[in-house]
């Protein structure tokens, strides 16, 4: 009889532990940033300062300027009417210039000159799998360098 009991006990334990358990989401890693549009986040100088989110759709590049830290879902408007980028495709020797025009978010009452979204197109973007783009924008009231590393993103921290 004691042997039977010793066999039954672990069985009951397994049954009781196996039933009624609840799944819990794994906590998010500290410092993890989420791209609001599913694009690639690139820090503007530092991650706490702000980000440029980049998304390529065919021949079109869209660039959103968003907040730093955990505020990557909050737009940051900039005064520039366009953003000029010097894009060096992976393996290319010479950079190309891509000018992105302001694309105001109508639902946020943005306008050209007070806008967080920019868009530009070039045929060579269609085949761009990897590139580095640099430029300058007036972010948070002062000129700041933009560095985009596609598709991995730029994170100096």
């Amino acid at each position: 009889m004691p042997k039977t009991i010793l066999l039954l006990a672990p069985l009951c334990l397994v049954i009781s532990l196996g039933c009624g358990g609840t799944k819990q989401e794994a906590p998010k890693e500290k410092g993890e940033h989420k791209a609001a549009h599913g694009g690639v986040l690139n820090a503007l100088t530092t991650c706490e300062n702000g980000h440029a989110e980049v998304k390529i759709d065919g021949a079109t590049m869209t660039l959103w300027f968003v907040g730093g830290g955990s505020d990557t879902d909050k737009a940051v408007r900039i005064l520039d009417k366009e953003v000029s980028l010097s894009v060096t495709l992976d393996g290319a020797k010479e950079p190309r210039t891509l000018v992105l025009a302001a694309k105001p978010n109508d639902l946020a009452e943005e306008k050209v000159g007070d806008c967080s979204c920019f868009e530009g197109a070039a045929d060579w973007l269609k085949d761009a799998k990897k590139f580095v783009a640099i430029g300058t924008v007036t972010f948070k009231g002062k000129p700041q360098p933009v560095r985009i590393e596609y598709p991995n993103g730029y994170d100096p921290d």
Partner: protein
Amino acid sequence: MKLPTLVVKSLRQHALSSALAVVSIALGVALLVSVASLREQTHRNFTQEGLGVDAILGPKGSPLQIVLNSLYHLEEMPGKVKWTYYKKVLEAPVVESGIPFITGHSYAGFRVNAIDPRFFTEFEYLPGQHFSFNPGRGGQGRMFAGLDEAVAGAEAARELHLQLGQTFNPTCGVNPGDKVHYEKDIRFVGILAPTGTPHDRAIYIPLLAFYTLGGHGSDVQGMAINEDQREISGAFLKIRPGRGGGQNPLVQGLEYDINQSAQAQLIRPSEVLPKLFSIIGWVDRVLVGIAILVTALALLFLFVALVSALRERRRDLALMRCLGATRRTVFGLVMAESLIISLAGAVLGLAFGHAIVAVGSEFIRVETGLRFSAGYVSGADLFVLPAAMLLGLVAGLMPSVQAYRLGVLQNLTPVS
């Protein structure tokens, strides 16, 4: 004599302590089962309720507050949204349709919401479920057509004993003492069939009726004709489905675009409501903890009862051994008693727990409109019997081993 007969006779002999042990285990299990059932059903009610609505356009403020106000008729709306902005949102390709509403009025403790009549035909209170006035389903009358007409939810109608044709005057606010709009009587023309959702606990008037209620200032009354000035509390939005009928990924872009504005935000209830449970999650963890503690105490009681019964029965067991009972028989006797008491307690506790849910669900339904089922099988229901078996075996193990090791000669020695 066979072991089952011996077990039954032994339990009868100690009927009082055995019954007390069963009852104490049953109480602990009942508490555990009822807490788990109410917890799971509350979670299901809140998350499913939100799933009937793709998104809510609301003012700036707490998203949870907006969801609770618009879908559960609790709290107050933190602000207003311009009608022109709502119309602009409707132009977004991803938006299929919208149902604007205004909250903030009440009658006899029930919220009075001004809403677009498409609420009764297009709104899904649960996925695929529309409101009905069908008498076969418990509804009456029709949806409102004129500005002086109203529709009542099933629970509001039942509690206020509302009849079609009856009139009322809404209160401008949701707090006791707020001003009543006596200037115009509003007549009930329909009662919705029960839905088992908080919508049963509200009264609905036409959207434009809100602006024309006597007692509202000229600026509000002007909103009835001037769309540029008009304001609403919010709107339920239907989002065009994505490929294969799934969630449209473009809704994220719309959410981002709207949330950057200074006056509105897009809220997806299916994302907001789980956050509510992460906030209040500690409450049910405490309740489950208390229930586990009560069950543990009950099992401790069982252990003590078995040990004391064993002390009383030392001579009886020694006699049994003399009459041919083996050590295993004695061990099995005590173990079987423990197992039967814990299983009986668990079964009784299961029944009692569901009875608690049945009684409690009626109170919850009256207060919140949420419907709970006493027959709901929660996770706790599934593991309570094997867990009771296990814990019964653990509680009985030590007394059984003592019985197994019982010295026949020492215990047959005359006491005096």
